[in-house]
Structures are given as structure tokens and as C-alpha cells.
């Protein structure tokens, strides 16, 4: 056990019963789940990180409780490894919580993780579709068999073009001025 914690427990044990009770209540009130209520964890990546289904020694567990990892350029590489391991283990919320507490500018890669792990930003935008998508669906149902293995470009149920390469079809339609509002669909082989 941590030496400081042992000293604190000894001091509490030396208190009269009533004061011990008050101290326990205060601790439980302020640290209901091991974290202070009123302040966010200064270094959230220091929490116990052995997850369900992962054994100690897995990459995601390399930063263990008690290690003091400040978000400095020197520590950035190891923190990034930890973030990567968390993401690969589908522990995205945990990884997001860690990077959100790290200020920008510590390292290029930490900034990258901050950017890609941020919550999605959603906005309403004006409609740009002027074709009739239902006619495209009907066209696919009726005609797709003739274009197996190809991309088809449709608009309101009209075939604008087809090609095995998405990029080539895109380029052709763009040059022909037909690309806007088109719908691309790849037909299975």
C-alpha cells in the first residue's frame, strides 16, 4: 500500500470513534468512486487500466496506476501508444477522455488523436439533391444485372454512365458536366 495512505489510515485509527466516522463520511462523500467530485482527474490516463478481457501486459495496460505521466513531449509517444491500444481494444470513450484532458500542442500525434477522437460535429445543410432517388432504386432493381462488376452513375432513374473504375466514371461525368446530383452505385459481380 502507498506509504502516505498507510500514514493517513494510522492517523484516522488514532482518532476517537465519532471523529473516525465523520472522517469516513467525508472521504466517501468526496471520493465516491475513487475520484474527487469537485475536480477532474489531473492525469486521467493514470487510472487502473486493466480492462475486462485483457490481461496485464497487453499494450493498453502498459501505463499502470501510480506512474506519473505528464503530457509532455517526452511522454507523448508512450501516451499515444496507450491511446492506440485503447482504440484498437474498442475502448474509445476512455481514449477520448484521456486526450480531451491533454492541452493542444504537446505533440503532432497527440493533436491528431485529439482531433480524430473528438465527438462528431453535426450541422444541418441545405439540400442539394434535385433528382428522384426512388427512380434510381427502381433502375437498380431492374437493370443492375447487366452491369455486374461496374460502377453505374444514375440520376432520376437515368443511366449517366458506367465504368469499372469509380475515379474514371467520376472524371468522365465531371468533364461532361453531369456529375452534380448524380448517384454512384457499384453493382456486385
Amino acid at each position, binding site marked *: 500500500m502507498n506509504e502516505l495512505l498507510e500514514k493517513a489510515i494510522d492517523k484516522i485509527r488514532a482518532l476517537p470513534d465519532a471523529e473516525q466516522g465523520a472522517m469516513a463520511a467525508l472521504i466517501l462523500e468526496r471520493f465516491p468512486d475513487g475520484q474527487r467530485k469537485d475536480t477532474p482527474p489531473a492525469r486521467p490516463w493514470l487510472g487502473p487500466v486493466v480492462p475486462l478481457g485483457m490481461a496485464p501486459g497487453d499494450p493498453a495496460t502498459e501505463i499502470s496506476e501510480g506512474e506519473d505521466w505528464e503530457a509532455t513531449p517526452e511522454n507523448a509517444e508512450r501516451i499515444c501508444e496507450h491511446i492506440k491500444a485503447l482504440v484498437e481494444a474498442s475502448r474509445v470513450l476512455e481514449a477520448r477522455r484521456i486526450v480531451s484532458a491533454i492541452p493542444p500542442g504537446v505533440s503532432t500525434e497527440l493533436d491528431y488523436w485529439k482531433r480524430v*477522437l473528438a465527438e462528431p460535429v453535426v450541422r444541418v445543410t441545405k439540400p442539394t*439533391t434535385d433528382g428522384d*432517388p426512388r427512380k434510381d432504386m427502381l433502375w437498380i432493381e431492374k437493370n443492375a444485372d447487366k452491369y455486374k462488376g461496374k460502377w453505374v452513375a444514375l440520376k432520376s432513374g437515368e443511366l449517366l454512365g458506367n465504368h469499372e473504375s469509380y475515379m474514371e466514371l467520376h472524371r468522365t461525368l465531371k468533364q461532361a458536366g453531369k456529375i452534380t446530383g448524380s448517384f454512384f452505385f457499384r453493382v456486385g459481380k
Partner: protein
Amino acid sequence: MFKGTDKERSEWSTGNAAYQAICKIDSWPVTVAVRCRIETLESGCSAFLDTGAEWSMIGEEMAVAINGQLGPPIRSLTMSTRLGTIFGELHRVSITLLADPGQGDELTIESTTFVSEEWEGPVVLGYRGFLERMRFALDPGIIPGEQIFYFGLAE
């Protein structure tokens, strides 16, 4: 499902569009296919709406098409998918859900998407980094062809 008055509940969706149920995109069977636009491409495409997928995904052809709009690859990682484990990178990718004409506005999500040259499946719209911050509902309709995908801001 949603708090608020009847009027507010009926107005949560900002747009809607027909979707395809139990169909194929390329050779891949998908349960729900919706229409979207990736980044600033001027054409739309079909995408597999998959609440069980951790991340949205795009494969090589689409990645090449929007390559100039993606940042540099910083860190490759592995992702376990229904088609096996593949390598790729997470990128911030703007994906727009297309509304049918006269059916409201589009919804653009600055999403986090797994971009992989090894991914041979369809464009996937997954939960983390995409669906987690929007409202959506699927109306299966009474007869085939009447399926409607409703979407809106989660506020």
C-alpha cells in the same frame, strides 16, 4: 422516445429519405442502405447504416477520390471487422446524409472514419464518431419501397 411536447417530438427530424432494406451494395448483403455524400464529392453513394459498427469506414476507391481532402496519415492501427482484421487510419471525414427532394434538409456530420485500402466492403456509417451525435429513426413502411430514414440533430 424523445422528451418534449407532441409538436417538438414531431419536429425532431430535419430531413428524411427513402432507404433500401435487405439489399446488396456491390456484392455485400446489407440490411439498411442509405444515401450519403463523402466530403465535397459532387455525387452521392449508398452506405451501410450499421449501429453495430464501431467506426464508419471507407475503402480504397472512395479514399482515392477524396484523398486531397484527408489529412496526412499519422498513425496506422488495426481494426477487427466482419471481413477480418485490416489496417488503416482514422481521419476526420465530412459525410452528408442526403434528404429526398422536398423532404427537408441534409445533415452533415464531421465524423471520424476509418479509412483503409484493405476495406473491400461498402461505405459503412457506424456508431462511434458518426451516429452517436445524431437522432435517427427507420420507418419500415407498410409495403416494400416505402421505407423512410429520418434524421436530425441531437440537441
